[in-house]
Every structure is written in structure tokens, then in C-alpha cells.
């Protein structure tokens, strides 16, 4: 049955004109499409709905064609991209559900609330799938901490993440923080959440069953966050401060109640579907649910619980007030749903019904104020959906950066002093100032705590464990986005493998500048192509993700910064979970290097931080060698042969050795002798890929060497764990650093925050 009702302007609506449409972020061409779809001028409410649904943030209209190269299937994939979050089988009837999402612009304007609501949003994405969140991670980028404005942002973001996650009782177990001037105006705040669910509890964001009630639960709707999705789809500017009302305010206690109520509703089998009201609030949640269910929806905004009076339909539909969800109850279960919500003290209201019209209609006191076919709003395959193919151009700067050769640089005089400088660099320095503010132990699953390559959590439900890491490297991607994209995936996966896990899936958050700049569009396409290649060859499906464009200010765009969160699985051995952490364990243990040292310095932290060059080619990557290393590492940890294992990344071999010394439970040092004859700074600080540092009891040395041979991984004993400082000897140069000097350099950087 098709209802051809024509919507009418709400009495308070401004006149709809092209200027109003472009003011909401629609292009003139898109405004034309709106009129073609409706066969008339849209009402103001309709225009608002089109503008948010077709914003870059909600529509992925620029990025989608590029994302098609990602592998999204695999034997463990129960849900790939397209839902609130992706789901992977982890055996025993259980699954993990995870996703990463950006909250960059809100955090740049109001760091505490911006970051807090970023955590809140990603947690809702996970628990609406029926999963109980058990861990959060985050990936952060700021300018240099010598800048007071940056410190304000950094402190606010960390406190916001802590304030929300801690109150929810979900541990924040890992993360990364990188400091570079390119993020000064546009910080990056990417939040990851992971939950565990039983296969049969998997629920989707779908609306179906004609006549079923559409129920609103959670916080009331206010005028906060109106047009937040559109705000996320334009560059930050001097005027962004005025968009402060586009930043939402979080209430983690409300969300904790929503979490418990949602999981109870799902476990009691009372729901058809449930969806978080995130970006574009009620508009996108209702449209997406209708689209996925192949249904229509009639919504009555007068029934929506509001916290302010006089809100017009346009405001109700576009509000991004936090901690709200939309659900469709099974027929006859409305009372049971109400009972659960009452137990948790939550507001609930029936605000509409599922229809078979294929239309998304909004009523206020019986007056139809919006009537739009669902498909062109939400279906990127619909002929009138505004997919955008933007021009691309290889950036001019690359010719200069690629031509740079480190070979003409002189060698530093004191390698120990360089090591101390790198250990104190904010990107490398110890981050306990950050993670001590996060409850990283609640739920009593965290086996490997923050401060190692990956967090490891046991899964109480099935006796296994998972490892997770979130990584990115904007500098590599700036210097070579295709290679950089591959390197980012490789490092995240290596961090997981080095902890003893087999990487089983990933999620990505693609942070870039404005896609309207052809050079940035090229960076985007190349980085994504590189990531897809690495994911395919390392056999890591992408199960969810998020795209964040327009990360720039009038001064500059950020470096292209795709962030990858990889999750790995650890199977128990005779009921015992074996996981590795990066700190040395015992004096006398042997130290081994897996992988080869190459004469590479391009794109390294050393080159930028110590020598002042953000240039060169990033390190090469052989994905076959990388995969072999991952398999060897997981096998070595699983065999119980490894005392510690640490990935080599920022700062290279010397920094990795120092970190393994400094991360132990007691004061330990290392005495190392290398035979390589490459330039000493490349040997000590180069970031050659596919390498890891292992320590093991001497008795396990032969078995480890045999295992490495089996996996065809170059493997060399390079020294021993000692009770002294760090000493590295090589044919061309040596490096000496006392334990206390390393410790001070590594741990004092963030005292500036106190």
C-alpha cells in the first residue's frame, strides 16, 4: 500500500531556498537532486534531513568507492561493515564485536566533552549489537606539548576519555598518542571499543514488521549537537568556536543504564532491532533502520521526550543529544520492554510505527512535515544518491621529500645522547600520565596492561584471550601513502602477534584533510589502496570502520592518518593462556632479534625529531616476510619459549631495547653486540620493518632458533639481559646509556602536564 501524502511546511519553518540549502552543506547539484526525488521543493525539515544524511560523515559519498578494495569476509566474520559494528567468531559460541570511530572536530573545540562523547558513541555502537563492551582503546594526535593550547586539548581529551570510560566500568586498555605540529589546530581523537557476545545474541539495527512499535529510550532530546554531522564534514576555522553548540554533552551514568537495559532487552529476546542515535541523531538512526529492514517508518515528533520547550521538528530530527537509542519491539512485547526500562529508570516513549510504504515520514500533531522515500537517503546504490568522484593529483611536495637522501647526513657524535633524546620525545616517552587516568583493570580481564605493544585480555566466557592494538603513522603516509597504508596495518598486526596472538580482524578510522583538494584525495585513495593490500596479504578482514575527512584548518591539513585497530586471538595451551609483554623479565636471559637490519632512515622519528627532516622514503615492507614473522611470533609465545617480546617501531632497535629494559618489574639492562656494518644511526634508530626483539631463558635458545628457521624468519642472538644499563656494540660504533639516565628521559616528559 503506497501512501502519497504530501508534507507541509511547519509554521515556524524558514523559506527553503538554494542559499538555505548550501548553508546546510548541500551543493547546488544536490539541492537539485532533492527536488527531483520529491518532485517538489522540500520542506525545511526535509532539507535538514537530506543535508545530514548526505553529509560526508553519514553518506561516505566520497570515500565509499575507495573502500571496496578492503577484504571484508573470512571464516570468522559474522558481521562485516555496514552495521553499527563488525563481529568476529572467537569460538565456543562466542564472538567479539568492535569498531573505531573519530571524534576529532568536537574534541578540537571542547576537548573534554568531545572526547567523552566519542567514547560514549563507540560504546553504543558495540552494545546495540548485543555485545557487552569489555575494552576500549584510543588513538590520539596533538601538536607539540610545549604549546599551552595543545596541553589544554591533550589534558581535556584524556580526562574526557577517562571520565566516560571509567564511569561506564569499561577498561581503557591500550592506545597511542603522537605529537606533531600538523595536528595543532586539528587534533585527532579516535575511540575504539570491543565487546563480547554469544552468537545468538547478535542483534542488528533494523526495523521490520508492519505495525511494530518504534520506541525511543534514554536521555531527552535537546538542542545540542544540531548539525553535528555536517560540522564534522567541513574544515575547522576561526568560526568553529561558534559551532560549540554542535558539540554534545555526555552523561556516562545514563549510558551505563542504557547499556544494562539494552543487553537485558536483547537477552530476553524482546527486540526486532536497535540502533544508537549517533551522528545525525533520530534522522540517521530511523532512516538506517528502515533501510536495512526494507521498510518505511512513521515518526511522531510530538511524542519524542524533550528537555527544551518549543523545539520544532527540524530541531528534534537533527539534535545529537547523547545517550539515546531507537528500538523496534517485537509485537506483543511492548509491556515487557517497558518493564525492563522501568527497572533501569529510563525514559521511554513509543514515537512511531513500522510501515510498508518505503517512506520515512514525520508528523507533528497529525501534520506531516516530512515525507521522503527511504532509499535515496540511505542506499548508496540508488541512482539519485549523491556519490562523488573527486579529482586526484599526486602531491607536489612528494618530489622534494622523496628526493631527500639521508646518506649525506653526518653521524651524530654521541649515540647514547640521541637515544635519551628519542626516549624523551613525547611520541615515544612513557605514557603512564595518560593511562593511569584510565581504569584499565576493571572487569578483571586485563592480563597485559597498557605500556606494552598490545593489551591482552582473557575472555572469561570461553577460556581464550584476545590481544588488541591501535596504530597509525601519519608521517609514513605523508611521505608515501600507498606504502604508509601498508605499514600501518603491518605494525598494528605485529603488535598483536608479538603478544602471542593470531590477528583475526581489524577496524579502521581514516583521518584525512579535505577531499576537495585533489592532492588530499590522492593521499586518501593511495593510503586506502595500501591498507587493503596489506589486509589482504596478511589475511586480516576489515569488519568495521569510519571515515573522517576535512581535518584541516586555514593553516594546514593534517598528515594523512589512517588508524588501524587489530584484534588477535590467543588459544589456550592445556588450559593456560600464554601471552608476552615487552619488558625483560630476568637477568641472564638471552636477547634475540627477529628480522634483518637494513640501511633505512626515511620517515623515522630519529630523522624528524633529532635531525629535523620530515623526509625520505618510509621503510620498505615485504608483506610475505611480515606474515612469516607474525606466525613465528605467535608460535614462539604459544610454545612457552618467550620471556618478553617487543615490536620494533618508532626509534628503532635502540629504543626497543631501552623500552624492554625500562618496562620490566625490576631494573634490568642489556648487553648487545651487533655484526651489521650499515651506518650506525640507521642500525640503532632506523625503523626497518618486520623486526621484533625477544628475550628467553638460555635453555630455550636452541628451540627458538629452530622455530625461526621453520618459519624462515632471520633470527640472531644479539646479547643478554643484564643488571646494568644498555650497551650496544657494533663494528662501526657503540652506544652506552645508564639505566637511570634512560629512566629519567623516558618518564619525565609529561611532568609538564602536572
Amino acid at each position, binding site marked *: 500500500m503506497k501512501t502519497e501524502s504530501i508534507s507541509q511546511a511547519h509554521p515556524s519553518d524558514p523559506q527553503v531556498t538554494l542559499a538555505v540549502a548550501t548553508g546546510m552543506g548541500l551543493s547546488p547539484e544536490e539541492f537539485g537532486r532533492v527536488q527531483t526525488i520529491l518532485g517538489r521543493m522540500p520542506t525545511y525539515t526535509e532539507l535538514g534531513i537530506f543535508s545530514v544524511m548526505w553529509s560526508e560523515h553519514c553518506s561516505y559519498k566520497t570515500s565509499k568507492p575507495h573502500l571496496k578494495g578492503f577484504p571484508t569476509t573470512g571464516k570468522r566474520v559474522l558481521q562485516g561493515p555496514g552495521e553499527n559494528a563488525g563481529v568476529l567468531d572467537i569460538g565456543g559460541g562466542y564472538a567479539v564485536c568492535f569498531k573505531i570511530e573519530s571524534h576529532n572536530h568536537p574534541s578540537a573545540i571542547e576537548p573534554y566533552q568531545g572526547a567523552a562523547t566519542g567514547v560514549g558513541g563507540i560504546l553504543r555502537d558495540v552494545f546495540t549489537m548485543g555485545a557487552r563492551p569489555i575494552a576500549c582503546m584510543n588513538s590520539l594526535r596533538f601538536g607539540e606539548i610545549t604549546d599551552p593550547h595543545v596541553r589544554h586539548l591533550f589534558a581535556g581529551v584524556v580526562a574526557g576519555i577517562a571520565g566516560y570510560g571509567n564511569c561506564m566500568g569499561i577498561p581503557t586498555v591500550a592506545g597511542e598518542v603522537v605529537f606533531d605540529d600538523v595536528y595543532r589546530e586539528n587534533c585527532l581523537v579516535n575511540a575504539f571499543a570491543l565487546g563480547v557476545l554469544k552468537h545468538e545474541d547478535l542483534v542488528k539495527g533494523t526495523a521490520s514488521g508492519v505495525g511494530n512499535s518504534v520506541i525511543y529510550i534514554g536521555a531527552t532530546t535537546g538542542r545540542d549537537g544540531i548539525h553535528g554531522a555536517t560540522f564534522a564534514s567541513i574544515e575547522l576555522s576561526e568560526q568553529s568556536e561558534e559551532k560549540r553548540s554542535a558539540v554534545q554533552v555526555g552523561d556516562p551514568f545514563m549510558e551505563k543504564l542504557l547499556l544494562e537495559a539494552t543487553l537485558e532487552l536483547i537477552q530476553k529476546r524482546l527486540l526486532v532491532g536497535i540502533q544508537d542515535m549517533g551522528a545525525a541523531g533520530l534522522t540517521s538512526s530511523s532512516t538506517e533502520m528502515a533501510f536495512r529492514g526494507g521498510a518505511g517508518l512513521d515518526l511522531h515528533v510530538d511524542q519524542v521526550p524533550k528537555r527544551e520547550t518549543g523545539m520544532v521538528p527540524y530541531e528534534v530530527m537533527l539534535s545529537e543529544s547523547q545517550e539515546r537509542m531507537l528500538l523496534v519491539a517485537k509485537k506483543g512485547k511492548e509491556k515487557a520492554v517497558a518493564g525492563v526500562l522501568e527497572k533501569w529508570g529510563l525514559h521511554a516513549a513509543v514515537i512511531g510505527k513500522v510501515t510498508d510504504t518505503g517512506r520515512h515520514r514525520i508528523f507533528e500533531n497529525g501534520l506531516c512535515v516530512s515525507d521522503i522515500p527511504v532509499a535515496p537517503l540511505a542506499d548508496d546504490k540508488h541512482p539519485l544518491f549523491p556519490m562523488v568522484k573527486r579529482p586526484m593529483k599526486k602531491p607536489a611536495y612528494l618530489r622534494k621529500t622523496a628526493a631527500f637522501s639521508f646518506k649525506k647526513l653526518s653521524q651524530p657524535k654521541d649515540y647514547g645522547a640521541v637515544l635519551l633524546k628519542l626516549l624523551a620525545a613525547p611520541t615515544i616517552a612513557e605514557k603512564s600520565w595518560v593511562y*593511569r587516568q584510565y581504569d584499565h583493570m576493571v*572487569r578483571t580481564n*586485563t592480563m597485559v596492561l597498557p605500556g606494552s605493544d598490545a593489551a591482552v585480555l582473557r575472555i572469561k566466557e570461553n577460556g581464550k584471550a584476545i590481544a588488541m592494538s591501535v596504530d597509525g603513522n601519519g608521517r609514513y603516509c605523508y611521505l608515501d601513502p600507498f606504502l604508509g597504508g601498508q605499514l600501518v596495518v603491518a605494525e598494528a598486526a605485529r603488535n598483536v602477534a608479538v603478544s602471542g596472538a593470531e590477528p583475526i580482524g581489524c577496524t579502521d578510522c581514516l583521518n584525512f584533510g579535505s577531499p576537495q583538494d585533489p592532492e588530499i584525495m590522492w593521499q586518501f585513495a593511495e593510503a586506502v589502496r595500501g591498507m587493503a593490500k596489506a589486509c589482504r596479504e596478511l589475511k586480516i578482514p576489515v569488519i568495521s570502520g569510519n571515515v573522517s575527512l576535512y581535518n584541516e584548518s586555514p593553516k594546514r591539513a593534517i598528515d594523512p592518518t589512517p588508524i588501524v585497530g587489530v584484534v588477535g586471538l590467543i588459544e589456550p595451551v592445556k588450559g593456560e593462556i600464554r601471552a608476552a609483554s615487552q619488558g625483560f623479565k630476568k637477568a641472564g636471559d638471552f636477547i634475540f632479534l627477529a628480522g634483518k637490519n637494513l640501511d633505512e632512515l626515511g620517515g623515522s622519528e630519529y630523522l624528524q625529531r633529532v635531525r629535523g627532516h620530515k623526509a625520505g622514503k618510509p621503510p620498505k615492507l615485504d608483506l610475505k616476510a611480515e606474515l612469516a614473522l607474525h606466525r613465528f611470533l605467535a608460535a614462539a609465545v604459544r610454545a612457552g619459549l618467550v620471556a618478553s617480546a617487543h615490536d620494533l617501531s618508532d626509534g628503532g632497535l635502540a629504543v626497543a631495547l631501552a623500552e624492554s629494559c625500562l618496562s620490566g618489574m625490576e631494573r634490568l639492562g642489556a648487553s648487545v653486540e651487533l655484526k651489521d656494518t650499515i651506518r650506525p644511526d640507521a642500525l640503532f634508530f632506523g625503523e626497518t620493518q618486520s623486526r621484533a626483539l625477544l628475550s628467553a631463558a638460555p635453555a630455550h635458545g636452541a628451540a627458538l632458533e629452530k622455530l625461526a628457521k621453520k618459519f624462515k624468519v632471520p633470527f640472531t642472538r644479539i646479547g643478554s639481559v643484564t643488571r646494568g644499563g644498555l650497551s650496544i656494540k657494533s663494528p662501526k660504533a657503540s652506544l652506552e646509556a645508564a639505566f637511570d639516565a634512560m629512566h629519567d628521559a623516558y618518564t619525565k616528559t609529561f611532568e609538564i602536564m602536572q
Partner: protein
Amino acid sequence: MKFAILEFPGSNCDHDCEWVLKSVLKQKTEMVWHQDSKLPSGVDCVVVPGGFSYGDYLRCGAIARFSPVMQAVAEFAKKGGMVWGICNGFQILTEAGLLPGALIRNKSLSFICKDVFLKVERADSLFTNRLGGKRVLRIPIAHGEGNYTCSPEVLEGLRQDRRILFRYCDESGAVTPAANPNGALDNIAGILSENGRVLGMMPHPERASEAVLGNTDGKLLFESALNALSRA
């Protein structure tokens, strides 16, 4: 033994306590909802778990004390029942007047999550009688408001009655300002009621009760409580 574990809206260490008591120590447990005005029959010990009860609105524990279940807990304590408040549970017990003093913002004004060392001031309490000679425990804290304070008179009373059970210390057991993570008066981390049957402590023993998590010092406290209950 049977443990009642309270559940407030916003509790988030309730299931961690349940896991240790039920799955690790094989005891009977029952979750008790904040609206319940009665405790289950046959309860030996009530655990008031950590978290953010009622979102910590107004003041940590200030709303929880008015919940129906807390009236029942007060009755239970008055009759000599054993009550164990951990973190937010400690805050609730002080708000409810079952323990003296108050917990205010950490001196650093930041939330702190890390392992700390605790000096056990007496090994003859209901909660510390099975330490096997250990006098320094490593147990994590995770709080924003764990800075214990009370009047000089109360402090004097706590000292004289040997009601200070745990004090923050360094690895060697020295109680120093540097070892005090939150500014707590006299490095106080945990105190007992007058009858010694109500304990409030900021650190989380339930997070340190399994080898798989790399720490079993907290388990010693649970085993002490079980030992005390079984002898009673």
C-alpha cells in the same frame, strides 16, 4: 559461605567481586538490587562493590546511602554482620555512617589507576588473618576520590582502637609521603568499624586474586574473610 553483593545503578565492580567469590573461591553469592529492602536470608557477608553508584552525582556514595538496600545493610551491620566496602563501596559506607570520615578528591585532582603497596597494620582482623606472614600487599587502586580524611579526634580514635587496617607504603613497607597516591590522611587506605566487622578500603582486592592476572595478593584477604567466617 554466602555473600550478598549489592548492585546499584552505576555499580561496575559487582561482577568482578562475584567472579572472585563464586568462580575462584567457590562460595555462594547473590546479587542484591538497590531497591530491595531486605537482604537474602543466610547471608554471612555483604559486599558493597566499586563503581559509580548513581553516577556519583552530588557526591560519591551520597545518593546510594538512601537506597532501600542500605537501610537493610545498616541493620545487618548493627547486628554484627560482616560488611566489606571496596572503593565506591567504602565511600558509600562513610556516607551511610557505618564508617567514620570521608573520601575526597585525589590530591592530584585526577583519577588514578595503578598498583600500590599496602602495609597491613594488623594481621588479626577478620580480613587479614591468612596472610602467611606477608605484611606488604600489592593491590591496585582505581579512583578519583580516594583521599581519606577525618577529624583529628576520629583519627586518634582510629589509631588507639587499631582500626586502621591498611596504609599506603612503598615496596619495602615504609609508609612515606611518596608512597601516598591520593593524599590520604596518614596514608590511610582502609579502616575498620568499632566492632571490626565492617571494612572499607579504596584498593581493589578482587582485581588481584588470580594468577592469570599476575597478582594474588588480594585473594589473601578473601581467604582471610572466609577463614574468619568459618570459625565463627
